[in-house]
């Protein structure tokens, strides 16, 4: 079983890489975002959301374009493994992000850039939560409806979230409700928890979200008719 999941992950990464522009562009985006992580800003977290959205949209649109779903459903692979592999890919990407981020972080600090702080665990927890939320907007639709039908809904959802994020950055103190402004500023200035309890809480949220999401998407895909 684990074997097949690894094979499926490898298949997806190979497929993405074989697309001449998609592969290198995505890897480039991932590397840049990871390096940008050291800034510890709200914007760098938006990039995490961007990467997750881009990957999801890319990999499912490839599946739609080449109609590979049916082919893989006829291989000796369980539906559950196909679903788990997709989550595995997101986690693999998260892993790569952390590795590059910490490396870049360490290098910057060693080189002597004094404004760079070590990336705290709270940041990582927030990254995981963002990934968990992104997959919860996208995966259930793709697995239930298939890439062709789910495209519209997921693109809309992702675009809305992106719009909100951009709005948060762009908001200037002027008119409007004071409460909203305070909330927006709070989020913008301190986008991730700095203390352990909140960090653990956030990690818990991510784990809980995935814990509920994975069985649901597995069930949805198992019931899918091609």
């Amino acid at each position: 079983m684990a074997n097949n999941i690894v094979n499926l992950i490898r298949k997806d990464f190979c497929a993405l890489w074989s697309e001449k522009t998609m592969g290198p562009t995505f890897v480039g985006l991932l590397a840049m975002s990871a390096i940008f992580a050291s800034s510890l800003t709200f914007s760098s977290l938006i990039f995490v959301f961007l990467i997750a959205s881009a990957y999801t949209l890319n990999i499912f649109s490839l599946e739609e374009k080449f109609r590979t779903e049916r082919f893989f459903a006829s291989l000796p692979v369980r539906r559950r493994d196909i679903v788990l592999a997709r989550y595995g890919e997101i986690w693999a990407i998260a892993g790569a992000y952390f590795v590059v981020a910490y490396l870049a972080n360490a290098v910057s600090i060693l080189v002597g850039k004094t404004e760079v702080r070590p990336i705290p665990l709270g940041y990582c927890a927030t990254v995981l939560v963002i990934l968990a939320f992104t997959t919860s907007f996208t995966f259930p639709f793709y697995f239930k409806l298939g890439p062709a039908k789910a495209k519209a809904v997921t693109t809309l959802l992702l675009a809305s979230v992106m719009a909100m994020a951009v709005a948060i950055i762009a908001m200037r103190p002027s008119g409007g409700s004071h409460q909203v402004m305070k909330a927006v500023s709070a989020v913008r200035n301190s986008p991730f928890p700095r203390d352990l309890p909140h960090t653990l809480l956030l990690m818990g949220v991510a784990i809980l979200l995935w814990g509920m999401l994975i069985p649901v998407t597995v069930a949805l895909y198992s019931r899918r008719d091609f």
Partner: protein
Amino acid sequence: MEHALKVNSLSKHYPGFTLSDVSFGLERGAVMGFIGRNGAGKTTTIKLIMGLIRKDAGSVEVLGREMGRDDSDNKEKIGFVYDEHGFYGNMTIRTIGRLIAPFYRNWNPEEFARLVMEFGLNPSRKAGELSRGQRTKLALALALAHGAELLVLDEPTSGLDPVFRSDLVDILYCVIQDERKSIFFSTHNTTDLERIADYITFIEDGKIVFSESKDALLERYRIVKGPRERLSARGREMCVGIRETRTGFEALSASAEDLAALVGEDVVVEKANLEDIMVYCVKGAADGK
């Protein structure tokens, strides 16, 4: 003898179409042609066999074992060629082989390479650059390279030229030199099957019309032609389907000699081929027999 494929009372209901009580069996080492019009239920049946859609009722056994919906063990022994090929367009044939290999316990890389070469494919070409026929050959190479004992082909020749179709039949003849291999082949083009199939299963409007030996079919049915006036009511009863024109009637009959005797004069009796049988059966059903 163990069946390579056994389908029992498969049923599936869609809003506009129902597949009901589909049953047939394919012996080990035999070739079965699955014929029917477009929309008769061939693809639905095959999807049910492969677990691509959920069945409402019935069961499927492959190589003696019940086939569950998500049955990955059984799929090790099945080679499946579908008419839409799901290959990533920018991957080379070689890469595709390498990516698929680990999914199968009995994958044979030398066999895959040999088949690719034998089918005239260049392993360095990208899947997207292949013609439709070449993609089908690639699908066949993938299906054969893992030691599959049952080959299931869903309309593999649709939209392809006669040269390719002949190539495909040649390939299938090579496959059946191994008596452990069985082939299940759906098509609406009966000339492909006329020669290689041992058994024919005919589906129409979601129901199996017959499932039997091709030789028996071709021996039993004949086309009878004659003048319209000489076709009596009793004569009509002997026909599976009748076509009447100004120049006379043409009918398919299982008792051609008796019918010819009844018609008496100006009667011609000819061999019927699979296409005739299919067409007249459908016509007869439509005319309310």
